[in-house]
């Protein structure tokens, strides 16, 4: 099956083409300077032409979406009704969903008869235990009944856990029942997975909660927000900007930094950022292990997964120490090296599509 994957980031459409029989994309690119439906339609028409010039026809298209709410609990085959269903979620992810709806329109117009599948980062978390999803808030009297915790790297976590199961089987190990999946992206995320079911996630109702990211504050005392309102007379936009664009590892370092730079560099100016990140990660691992009742494997994924080479041993040592020096404890470690495009293509190849 010839597969095209499309991923919308910062208004740019990143595309990868996987001809039949190829697990890695054979060509890829990004639509620069494309501003909405009309530009995307033109860009997609060029893509279709390029595919045809190479002697291929696109047989399936996969698009990644960050948020599917409680509606989209599985990969989704786009139909005429899908747009309306997505629109109802716009308020929950206002920067992403309306833009993706436009992209979907452009795809449907350009590739009329090609099946279009949507893959949601939140689907993996749709059936998380209620105790984990629920905030200690009276969501009904607040008028926010949909307020709940999600994860936002579900596609990475799901693929990483599947890869770990596959590897352990090939290596003759037991099926890793209790896993910590750590996605090393610009907004890192950790999930405790029991079997195939996530039971704890560091992110919240938005991706802001959880581990500190490259520019995001991560979990913080809500009192800080109130102080910013009261003392600095800031509005929601300023607070959002400060917490999502000027905080995190870059905020600690006092300059823009990348997660892999912080984890791998021995630059003393990054020491505090590294210590804070590893400390928060260790605490989150502790929470996950407590929920799981033990640990069989740690799995890394995400664009900075190669940094697991530095982070993994450090984490193993701390976690083993927490087990009161039981050096016989075995924690398997796996790293998923695939990018999101390969994950989408694999989902189309192997994952049953259930519109329910």
């Amino acid at each position, binding site marked *: 099956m010839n597969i095209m994957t499309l991923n919308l980031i910062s208004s740019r459409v990143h595309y990868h083409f996987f001809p039949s029989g190829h697990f890695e994309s054979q060509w890829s690119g990004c639509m620069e300077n494309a501003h909405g439906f009309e530009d995307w339609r033109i860009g997609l028409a060029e893509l279709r032409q390029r595919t045809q010039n190479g002697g291929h026809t696109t047989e399936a298209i996969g698009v990644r979406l960050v948020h599917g709410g409680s509606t989209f609990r599985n990969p989704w085959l786009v139909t005429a009704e899908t747009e309306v269903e997505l629109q109802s979620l*716009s308020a929950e992810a206002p920067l992403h969903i*309306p*833009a993706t709806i436009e992209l979907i329109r452009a795809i449907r117009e350009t590739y009329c008869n090609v099946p279009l599948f949507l893959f949601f980062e939140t689907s993996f978390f749709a059936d998380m235990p209620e105790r984990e999803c629920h905030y200690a808030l009276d969501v009904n009297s607040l008028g926010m009944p949909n307020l709940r915790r999600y994860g936002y790297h579900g596609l990475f976590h799901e693929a990483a856990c599947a890869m770990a199961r596959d590897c352990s089987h090939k290596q003759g190990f037991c099926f890793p029942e209790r896993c910590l999946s750590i996605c090393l992206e610009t907004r890192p995320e950790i999930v405790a997975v029991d079997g195939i079911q996530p039971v704890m996630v560091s992110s919240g109702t938005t991706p802001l909660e959880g581990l500190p990211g490259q520019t995001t504050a991560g979990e913080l005392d809500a009192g800080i927000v109130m102080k910013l309102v009261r003392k600095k007379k800031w509005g929601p*936009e300023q607070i959002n900007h400060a917490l999502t664009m000027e905080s995190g590892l870059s905020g600690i370092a006092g300059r823009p930094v990348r997660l892999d730079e912080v984890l791998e560099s021995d630059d003393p100016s990054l020491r505090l950022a590294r210590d804070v990140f590893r400390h928060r990660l260790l605490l989150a691992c502790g929470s996950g292990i407590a929920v799981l009742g033990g640990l069989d494997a740690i799995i890394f994924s995400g664009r900075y997964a190669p940094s697991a080479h530095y982070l993994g041993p450090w984490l193993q040592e701390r976690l083993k120490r927490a087990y009161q020096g039981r050096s016989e404890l075995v924690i398997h470690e796996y790293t998923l090296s695939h990018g999101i495009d390969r994950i989408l293509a694999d989902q189309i190849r192997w994952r049953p599509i259930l519109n329910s």
Partner: protein
Amino acid sequence: MYELLRMKNSGLRKDVMAFTQELIDTPSPSMGEKDVADKVAKQMDVLGYHHVYRDEVGNVIGVIHGYEQNNTLLLNSHMDTYQAGEHHPMRVEGNRIYGTGASDCKGGLASQIFAGALLLRSLLPLRGTLVVTASVAEENGAGIGVRTLMDQTLPEMGLRPDYAILGEPTNLGLYYGHDGWMEMDIKVQGADPFQVDNAARRIYRSYEDRTKHTSSQVNEVEIHDPVFPRESEGRVAVLRVAKRMQIADQAQQILTKTERDVQLLTQPGSSVDVSVGVSREQQISYAGQEMQVQRITNAWATDPFDPLIDRSRQVLAAAGSPSCPGKWQLDRLGMGTAGATLLNEYNIPTIGYGPGHEERAHRSDEWVDGEHVVQGVYGTAAIAHGLIGFPVCGWTTDDI
């Protein structure tokens, strides 16, 4: 989010510049706005406004619907320009775009129209409705355009603005009011032409002295030469006086006091009658609508603690374009904005946010900085999103 707005705004820059120049290049005296109105309506269509209307007096209304209908933001700029003499054709020098109405307020009009387009292109979902209006007949002091919008056009469309932003020149500051002014006709009438002329002369000199001895840079009062309309009986002199009005001033009180003052200026025992009334004019809009215009603009000031001002200030700070609240000085009588109508008559909290300088308005060398207009697009869109958009909390455009 603001990165996204900035990026999309830079994509619009060329079109914004071209449209601003086109507007300035098109003459549009009060009641002669048709050509500009055609261009505005066409541009709104091209930019993808959901609905574009024209009402019976010639106002152009562009609507962008949100997901809900619980809030409506009105953006308003006038299409007409102050016409003291000939129309000064558009010319460009560097970033400066010269021409009649450049600052007041075709730069602001372009900014507001493209702010709607910027929100559409950014695909940022709106909760409420954005209504962008280009109104007629502001510079003649009539406010007919805005009154028709509020009394007739918008209600018929089922729209009731909760806030309003004027595109008048504020140098991209947040302005929340200004003094008002009133033009009065002092009518001196009597059987004896000498007594009438004498009384008119005394009144004229008295006002002329007041204008000469004012200590402020700002005009407080202004008098025009008397005119002597032909009447069937006796002699009549009409003197037109313009007077600045403060927030607390009531038009009727000023008329009464003026009448008392001018009666004292007539000679005791003379047989002239003096009456004072607000100046009125009969005008016909470009759409053929006849209307009587009262030459009065009330002072207005939105409460500086109104959430509209607070939220706008917060949003602009977050957007990296901090802006200080202030008020228009209106150093020359006869100037004004639609804020007086929107706030005083319709109780709609109103602010001004637009490119260009107030001091450059109504001058022969009027100009606006094109980059300011582009910046105005960004700032106006940011404010509009802050007021009627879905809040973007916890998300960024990239990374996820």
